[in-house]
């Protein structure tokens, strides 16, 4: 028999209410998609916490490197004109 295994790691994303974003809830172990979905349902939605579940093999997720975070995100640092508060509105203008 093959050596014992605890199956593959999947990440679980749950949509709490219809219309909202799917949010990361945690992980499950499973050998295939169907088992991953069923395990995610049993582990993360025992009290109606979900209306939809995504499961993704953990090794398919690409993540930014925390050591490079400063450099990686700094293009946004000097672009204050991307925020509405940057602009000076004429006195008296309404609903803008």
């Amino acid at each position, binding site marked *: *028999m*093959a050596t*014992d*295994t*605890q*199956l593959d*790691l999947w990440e679980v994303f749950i949509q709490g209410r219809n219309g909202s974003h799917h949010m990361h809830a*945690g*992980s*499950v*172990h*499973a*050998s*295939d998609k169907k*088992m991953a979905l069923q395990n995610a349902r*049993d*582990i993360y939605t*025992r*009290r109606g916490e979900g209306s939809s579940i995504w499961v993704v093999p953990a090794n398919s997720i690409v*993540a930014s*490197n*925390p*050591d490079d975070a400063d450099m990686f995100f700094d293009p946004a640092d000097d672009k204050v004109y991307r925020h509405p508060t940057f602009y000076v509105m004429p006195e008296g203008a309404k609903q803008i």
Partner: protein
Amino acid sequence: MSSNTAPAIEDARLSKFEERVQKGDAIEPRDWMPEAYRKHLIRQISQHAHSEVIGMQPEGNWITRAPSIRAKQILLAKIQDEGGHGLYLYSAAETLGISREEMIEQLQTGKAKYSNIFNYPTLTWADIGAIGWLVDGAAIVNQVSLQRTSYGPYSRAMVRICKEESFHQRQGYEIMAMMMKGTPEQREMAQDAMNRWWWPSLMMFGPHDSDSPHSSDAFRWKIKRHSNDELRTKFIDKTVQQAEVIGLTIPDPELKWNEATGHYDHGEINWDEFYRVIQGNGQCNKQRIAHHKKAHNDGAWVRAAAEAYKVKQAVKNN
């Protein structure tokens, strides 16, 4: 790396890490962390996960003998939650680089511990009440404090667990309250359970602060947010009133309200018993691990079949 720059880089990383922790930043799996932090967390989180899983056994002992269908449904749901808690925590520990297989192996060989409380037997139905009320009650005090632990995945698991725990404590207290309204025999049974579970529940918080090893790093790195004695006192302060309301006596003649501190003082805990049980000589230590191994081995064919199915599907889809 040359031999003299390595320690300098290490020092810089350590001070940056400690600065972040002091600021209240959460540490995430891919962030740099000191080896001692990683080790401490692996030990603590895996021990916590094992406790959730082993804790299913004493309660599982009463599923087939629950006194009503309502009681049985509740107990099943509660035990299923504990299994879920174990899984949240194993996942959190895995983010630190230990595998599920290694953790199971450490549990089964005795290298990793689980909470001492689960080495006591559940002799009567009242024990199910006492576990929910006192054991989950004590666990909640600890887990509420850990919601603010510095390691992100552990903290998030605690938030989820705490949401689920309050039903556990309430169902236990309801059982105790119901029995205290019953026949003299039922009241006696509830008091007997109280007498047996009270002291082991206090021991769940661990040794007195003055005798507790590894705590200074744990505080500096905000893994632990409150001391053992602080948490124990918090639990006692809450529980005494709940016992009074339903007419149970706390089995501690020295327990009394201390006007000056604003807390209860309690009698000395039997630490000899605590260490005896930790060292494997409690009433159920052997049974708990034997049962875990049996369930694990009995399930091996299911995991093997699932793997075989996965391989077959992959071939078919190619």
